Every structure is written in C-alpha cells, then in structure tokens.
C-alpha cells in the first residue's frame, strides 16, 4: 500500500518527457503538416453545442458561423479526434501509475470551494485568451515554436511572462 502511494507521485524525468514530446511533434508535422492542439477541440465543442441549442443564433454569430459547415458537424475535426486520444492516453498513463480517482486537488491551505472558483475563473480567462491569440500553449506556443513561428514565440513569452508577474497575487493558492 505504501509502495502504491509512493508510485503515484513519481513522474518521468522532465527531459525524457520533453524529448519524447519533441519527437511526437516532429512525427505530427511529418505526417499531417500541422502541429498539436488542445483548445481547438473545446472551441469545436462550443460551436457544436451552440449550433444544436440555438441553430439560428450560431448561424448569425460572426464567430461561430466561421466553423459551421452545411454537410458536416464541427465535431468532425482533426483536433477533436486528437483530444479524444489525449483523454485516452492520459487515462492509460494515469491508470498504470494508480492515479485515477475522483477528487478536487488543491493545496492543504485552501478549501475545495476556493480551488474550484479559481479553476473556473482561470478556465474562462484561458478560453478567452486562446481565441484572441488563435491558439493555446499547445497549438500556438509549442507547435508554433517547432516551426519557429514568430507569433507562437510571442504568445509563449506573453503566457509565461505574465504567469511569473501575476504569481504573487495567486500565491495563497499554491504555496
């Protein structure tokens, strides 16, 4: 039991993980001509839900309508399939390490409620920012850097730079 608990907190060497991730990005570009992504699948989901709930509104909205096609669902996209794969891959990895289970993870110094509120707010900001920058840490920053995209590089610096600057105001949540 003790051994099982210890295994849970053991992760790969970060350089090893980074190396494999780099190889995967090369492979992805080599096969598909594009990089990885994550927030794109969530955008497709929002478009699909909106189109289902209020079709006319989705059609008339200048942003949603960009992603609606007559003959196929917005869910029929490469990034949605890839995101389903991410869920599956992470489930396998977490399962093998004994990390699967329902829980709210947070610092012992804060309550679950506070954690969930900040998770929600952070998500709203990230979702908004990823639309403005046309991609998130995966699609803009990481895949952008692989092909030396200037925009991807700027977004990466903006994300991490702001993270360090804003860290002071959120310190109670983490340390």
């Amino acid at each position, binding site marked *: 039991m003790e051994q099982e608990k210890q295994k849970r907190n053991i992760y790969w060497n970060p350089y090893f993980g980074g190396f494999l991730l780099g190889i995967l990005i090369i492979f992805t570009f080599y096969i598909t001509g594009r990089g990885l992504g994550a927030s794109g699948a969530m955008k497709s989901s929002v478009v699909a839900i909106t189109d289902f709930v209020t079709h006319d509104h989705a059609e008339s909205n200048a942003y949603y309508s960009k992603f609606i096609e007559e003959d196929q669902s917005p869910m029929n996209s490469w990034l949605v399939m890839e995101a389903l794969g991410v869920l599956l891959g992470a489930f396998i990895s977490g399962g093998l390490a004994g990390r699967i289970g329902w829980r709210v993870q*947070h610092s012992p110094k804060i309550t679950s409620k506070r954690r*969930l509120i900040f998770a929600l707010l952070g998500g709203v900001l990230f979702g908004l*920012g990823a639309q403005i920058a046309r991609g998130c840490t995966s699609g803009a920053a990481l895949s952008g850097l692989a092909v030396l995209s*200037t925009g991807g590089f700027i*977004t990466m610096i903006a994300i991490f730079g702001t993270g360090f600057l804003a860290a002071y105001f959120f310190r109670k949540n983490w340390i």
Partner: protein
Amino acid sequence: MGPLIPNGVIPFEWNNIIAIIIGIAFGFILESSGFSSSRKLAGVFYGYDFAVLKVFFTAALVSSIGLLYMDYLGYVDMSFLYVHPTYLWGAIIGGVIMGVGFVAAGFCPGTSLCAVAIGKIDAIVYVIGIMVGIVIFAELYEVFQPIYDGYFKGYITLDETFNISPYLFIFLFTIIALVTFFISDIIRKKRKKVHHY
C-alpha cells in the same frame, strides 16, 4: 517526401485514425510527465517545480532542431508545414490573458484534458470555464475583432523577424535553454519543498 498526408503519400482517409493515435501519445506523455497535476504545473511560477519549463523547452528544441534537420536532409519540405500566423497584438493580449488564467488555475487546455481523464473535478470545472470563455469571445466578437483580425504580420518565422539564419537562431535558443535549466535547478534547491502533489 513529407508531410505525408498533404502530399498524398498517406491517403486522407487515415487522417482521423492518425489523429487519435497522436492524441493518445500526447496524452500519455503529458500525464506521465506529471502534467495532470495543477500543483506540479504551477510550481514553475513559484520555483518549487520546474517540470513545465524543462518539458516545454526540451520539446521545443528537439522538434525545431529535428524539423530543420529533416528539411536539410530532404525528408520534409518546411514550406509545406503550417506556420502559426502572427497577429501581433492578438498574440500579446491573448497570451497575457492566458498567463493570468494559467497561474490562477494551474492548467492549460491540454494538461487539463489529462487531469479530466484521471478524474480531477477541478479540471472538469476548468474545462467548463474554457468553454464559457469561448462563448464570451464569440458573443463579444465585434469587440475583439480589431485585435483578432488586425495587426497581421503574415506567416512569419523568427529567422525572418530577426534577420538571422534559422540555424544560428536555434543555436542561440539552445544555449539560452541550457542556461535556464541550470539556473532553475539552483533556484529549486533554495526554495522550501512543497510536498505531496
């Protein structure tokens, strides 16, 4: 010659199958590196865990060096690869907003999917938040459109921006990354440890 699907070497019908396989590998690597834990991810901003920095920069270096090599050896034509476009103020303002979101929640979209997969409820709430953020953007699209569509600089790359050879840029970037890794280890040793995350 690559890329294989755009060049018709692999039939287009394989696209979705390949997407799922690549996704599985992506999710497995992120989760195994500890990226399903928001407390581990946020460590980079407080100096108690630099896994994000190390994984991210190692991956960026390996992939950019590897792609340049494959282009040089003739296995892939770089001019066929999709380059994330540069909308200057969109990249900056979007990045700043994401940065605050990152340190507030401890996740980015890809890592949150990994955490959802192993049952973290805070990650599920985070993904709902992302979707709300996308709705806000769409509903206020007219407000954001000037920065979303404006200041377009093209599909430019860093070697063009700085007017240096891509090989020299990668070389300099590698040195900066190595120094950063070295400094991050020194900082981490000085910080008090945060246990059990």
